[in-house]
C-alpha cells in the first residue's frame, strides 16, 4: 500500500511514498529493490564493445586511437585502481609517437564502472562536445579510447599529448535507479600527480532524467573557456555560470 502523497513521484525518481508494513517496507518495494540491485551488480561486470564504438567514430570521421591500461579483466579493474590510472607499454609508446605540441584539448573515453553508460550516451555526448570546441576554435587531439581506466589516466594522456586541457568521459558507478550515467572531468594543464581538487566534474549525464548532452556540453565549454583564461581548474575555478545560459 503506497502513501497518500504517492503523486509526488512525478517530481523525482527517488523511492518516496513507499508505504510500509510496520516499520519495514512492503513486499513489493522489497522485491523491486532486490531486482534493481541485481541489475546494477550485473552492469558493473559488463565489458565495453570498443570495436563497435570505434567503428561509429570512424563513420563520423572522428580521428581516434585505441589504448589500453594493464587491465583486461573487470574484477581486477575493481581491485586495482592504481593500474587503471596507467597506460600499458604499447599505449605509452604509440602516444609518444603521436604527440606534437599544439593540441588544445585531449579527449579520453573510458567505460569506467559502466559500459552501458558509454555505449548509450558516449557518441551523442562526444558529438556535442566536439561541436562546442569547434565553435571555440580549439584543436582536439585524436580521441583516446581506453577501456578499464580511471579518471586520473587523463593526466598521463593529456601530458603526453601536451594538451592544455584534458577531458575524460567515463561511465559512472551504476546505481539502483540508473546504470547509464556518464561523467565528464576537466583538468587544466594535465600532468601526472594532478589531484582531484584540480578537476571540475560534471556528473549524472543521462538524458532525459539526468543532465542533457546540450547542457553538459555548454557547461564543459564554459569551464574550458574559464580554465584557459584563468590558468586553473578544480575548486579554484568556480562555476558561476548564470542559470539562464543553460539550455
Amino acid at each position: 500500500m503506497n502513501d497518500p502523497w504517492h503523486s509526488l513521484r512525478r517530481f523525482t525518481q527517488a523511492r518516496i511514498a513507499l508505504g510500509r508494513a510496520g516499520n519495514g517496507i512492503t513486499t513489493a518495494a522489497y522485491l523491486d529493490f532486490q531486482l534493481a540491485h541485481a541489475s546494477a551488480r550485473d552492469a558493473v561486470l559488463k565489458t565495453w564493445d570498443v570495436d563497435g564504438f570505434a567503428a561509429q567514430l570512424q563513420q563520423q570521421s572522428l580521428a581516434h586511437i585505441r589504448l589500453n591500461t594493464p587491465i583486461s579483466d573487470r574484477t581486477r579493474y575493481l581491485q586495482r585502481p592504481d593500474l587503471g590510472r596507467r597506460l600499458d607499454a604499447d599505449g605509452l609508446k604509440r602516444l609518444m609517437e603521436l604527440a606534437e605540441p599544439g593540441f588544445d584539448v585531449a579527449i579520453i573515453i573510458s567505460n569506467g564502472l559502466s559500459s552501458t553508460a558509454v555505449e548509450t550516451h558516449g557518441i551523442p555526448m562526444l558529438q556535442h562536445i566536439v561541436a562546442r570546441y569547434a565553435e571555440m576554435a580549439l584543436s582536439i587531439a585524436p580521441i583516446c579510447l581506453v577501456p578499464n581506466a580511471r579518471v586520473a589516466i587523463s593526466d598521463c594522456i593529456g601530458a603526453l599529448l601536451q594538451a592544455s586541457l584534458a577531458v575524460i568521459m567515463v561511465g559512472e558507478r551504476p546505481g539502483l535507479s540508473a546504470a547509464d550515467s556518464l561523467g565528464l572531468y576537466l583538468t587544466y594543464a594535465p600532468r601526472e600527480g594532478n589531484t582531484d581538487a584540480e578537476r571540475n566534474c560534471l556528473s549524472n549525464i543521462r538524458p532525459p532524467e539526468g543532465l542533457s548532452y546540450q547542457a553538459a556540453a555548454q557547461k564543459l565549454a564554459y569551464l574550458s573557456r574559464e580554465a584557459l583564461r584563468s590558468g586553473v581548474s578544480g575548486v579554484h575555478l568556480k562555476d558561476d555560470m548564470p542559470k539562464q545560459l543553460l539550455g
Partner: protein
Amino acid sequence: MNYSVSVQGKCFNFQNLRTLLAKASPRRAADELAGLAAESEVERALAQRLLAELPLSRFIEEPLIAPEIDEVSRLILQQHDAEAFATFAGMSVGEFREWLLADSSDLSSLSFGLTPEMVAAVSKIMRNQDLIAVARRCRVVTRFRDTIGLPGRLSTRLQPNHPTDNPRGVAASILDGLLYGSGDAVIGINPATDNLDNVCTLLNLLDEIIQYHQIPTQSCVLAHVTTSMQLMQRGAPVDLVFQSIAGTEAANRSFGVDLAMLGEAKAMAESLGRGGLGSNVMYFETGQGSALSADAHHGIDAQTCEARAYAVAREFSPLLVNTVVGFIGPEYLYDGKQIIRAGLEDHFCGKLLGLPMGCDVCYTNHAEADQNDMDNLLTLLGVAGCAYIMGVPGADDVMLAYQSTSFHDALYLRHALGLRPAPEFEAWLDAMGIFNGCNSLADARATIPLLSEFRGISGEPL
C-alpha cells in the same frame, strides 16, 4: 625505532611504528592495495601482540609523519593535553584496552588526553563488541537548532538528493522524509553541481521550508567549503558549513582545503548567528581510504589515517561528523565484513576523540555487500550509541548512485532499541501529527496538515 619478535625460530621485523600499526590492522583492501598490510595472518597476530606491549607514550615520542612537513601532525601534538593524559601515561596499549573495558565512567572528558594514533592503536586489538561497549559510554552532545547526541536518542540526516537538483524533486523527498520522522540531525543535500546559483537556490529552498514550518533542525548543502564561503559573502542562508576532510595535510590539499581555510569558514558561519540553541556550525565527512586514494597516506594504514582526520574535525567543534564508510568502494573496503568492521572502528575512534559521531551506513554496487550487511552494521551502531545515521528514500540515493539507510531503517532501529529522535524534533513530530506521542508514526497520516500545506520553492505549494 625497529620493532621485532621471534616465533618458532622465525623473526618478524617492523621497521617503524607506522609499519607496526599497518601490519596490526584487521584485514583491509586499502592496506593491501597500498602494500602495507600484513603478509600472513601470523604476521598480523604478532604485530598486534607487539602493539599491545607498546607504551602509549611512544605515540608522542614517534610521530608517524614529521611535524615539519604535515600540519595535521602539528595539530595533533598541539591538541594533546598532558594533564588529561596523566591517567594513561604509564599504560601500554594492551593495558589501555583493559582499562577502557573495565572502567564504567563517561569517557568524554578524557578525549584531548588521547591522540588519534593511540585510539587507532587500541582499536586494532579490540573486537567488534569491545568497540561497541566502549563507544556506548562516550556521549558527545552538540547543538544548533536542536540537540544531537543525548543518551537514548538517535538522529537522522534527511538526504533528499536529486540527479539534477530540481527543487521540486528535492522538496518532494524532504516532505517524504519528514512524514517518516526523519531529519533532526540536518536536512543535507549533496548538490549535483557546485554551481553558485544552483547551491544558492537549494539553500533558499531549505531555509524557506525550515522557517515556514518551524522545524527544529538545520540545513546544509554539501558544497566545497570555498563555495559556502562565497555564498555567505553574498548573503545566502548558510546554517552548517560542510567539508570532506582527511588525516594528512596532503590529503586535505587534494580536497582543496587546509586548517586555516576551515577556521575562516567556521568564523564566517558563527558570525551569522543562525543557531538559536547552540553554535556548532561545522559538518564534516570522512572515510577510510581517502588519503590513499589521494596518494597522500605517507605509508600510514587507512584506519589510522582516518582517526587522524578526527583531530582535524575536533579542532572546529562540529555539530556533526560522519564516516561515509562504504562509499569509497571495494578497492578500499572489499566486502560487507570489512565495511562493518570499519564502521565500528570509525565510530569508536571518533567518539573517544570527542566527536558527535554518526555514520553513513552504506555500500556501492561494485562492492561485495548488500542490504543484509547494512542491517547488521546499522543495528550494531545503534547499540554502540551512534549519534545519527542517514535517511535516504528507500535507501537508494538517485544522485550519488549508492545505497545508504532509509527512513524505514531509522524507524526500525528506534523501535528495536527504544531510541527517540532529538527532543526538540520529537516534540515537533508530535505537534504535527506525524508521530503519535509514543515515538511511533501516527496512523492517520493522510490527514496531516503538513501534507496539504507543505511549501516548496518560493512559498508555492508543491
